[in-house]
């Protein structure tokens, strides 16, 4: 059945294949276009470098008028990622605009890895270490990077 959401997701997928941004990839799951798997590669020159972080993106029929639910499946240590993998990012909540697509979502999350916002913490330990003990923060992040190879 073709609905605006499904039609739009086909377009998002096509664009992601034809014009993929560096360091991210994503595709619908085999039997359901409303659920996608995605991977974000840790950005260079950040402690996340070399990590391959897996995510799921769940859309509703209200997409693109409402944002999808995006969640890290890989274990993350980041000031703006909750213990359950949920992401605290304005464009996924109150600043969502229907002009964003999957590409834009993934690249925004990628830049969140490079530039955490410790003032709006979802993981207060990560936020505190990020602000006060950068070495320890990086150590904990590196552990996630290594774990991401195994996951």
């Amino acid at each position, binding site marked *: 059945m073709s609905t605006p959401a499904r039609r739009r997701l086909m377009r998002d997928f096509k664009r992601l294949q034809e014009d993929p941004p560096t360091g991210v990839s994503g595709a619908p799951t085999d039997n359901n276009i409303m659920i996608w798997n995605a991977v974000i590669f840790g950005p260079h020159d950040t402690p996340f470098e070399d990590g391959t972080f897996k995510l799921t993106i769940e859309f509703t029929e209200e997409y693109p008028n409402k944002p999808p639910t995006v969640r890290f499946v890989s274990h993350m240590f980041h000031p703006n990622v909750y213990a359950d993998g949920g992401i605290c990012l304005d464009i996924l909540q109150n600043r969502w605009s229907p*002009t964003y697509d999957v590409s834009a979502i993934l690249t925004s999350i990628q830049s969140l890895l490079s530039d955490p916002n410790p003032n709006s913490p979802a993981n207060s330990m990560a936020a505190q270490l990020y602000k006060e003990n950068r070495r320890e923060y990086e150590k904990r992040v590196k552990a996630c990077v290594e774990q991401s190879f195994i996951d």
Partner: protein
Amino acid sequence: MGDEGETMTNNVSENSEPTANQDELILAQQRQIEKEISDNIPLVGELDSVISLNKEYSTDDIYLEKIKDLASKYSYVRRTRPDGNCFFRAFSYAILEKLLCDKDSFIKFYKIAENSKNVLVELGFQQFTVEDFYDTYMEVLKRLKDIENIGEAKKELHNVFNDQGYSDYMVVYLRLLTSAQLQKEHDFYSCFIEGDRTVADFCHQEVEPMYKESDHIHIMAACSALNTGVRVLYMDRGTGNNVTKHDLPEGCSPTVHLLYRPGHYDILYP
């Protein structure tokens, strides 16, 4: 449910976690409220007499007096769903409904709409996403244009605007056109924006996102984008027994008449 329980336990065991996923809890509650509204109120309702508004204010003398005044000027009201998109939905519906009775104006409107995607792309909107809304918008306009019988066309308009997928796309596209208008004339509109936000910021935060309510500034820009005028009848608890009318832009001869009650717009008919 299981997930929530798990998160809570994690929080207790790891003392440093301040919250369950608060964002999701808030969003879930918001969704629940929205669902109650959407289950009970259609996106765009049938015509109802202005006097029917009395039911909503049976014990409120100020409103009852004002409804009496409103009823002396208008006969019917068409309610829209209060979901933050009411202005855009009401405006878009009302203007198309009017145009259906005037083929020449409709064709003119259609031609301007056809070219609007290029205007948006030139302003820096991403072609790929704009195209999605534009295609649907034009599909609806074309469908309406091709129906000869006015009554049939109005019925189709009503159906389209009550089909959430189409209806919301019509709203989004008008939001984009409004945003483009604001940005094109940013010198003028910047005076109306509070704080130190730029017009572009304002558009990204208050105009383009769905469910964001409309203010005076949205209405001015939307009128200007569609090259039309609107009369808004204000009905609130303010002093006096009369509703207050306001034409936008000032001095225009309005094609669309809207009823404003604090936080909400409906369509009015003579």
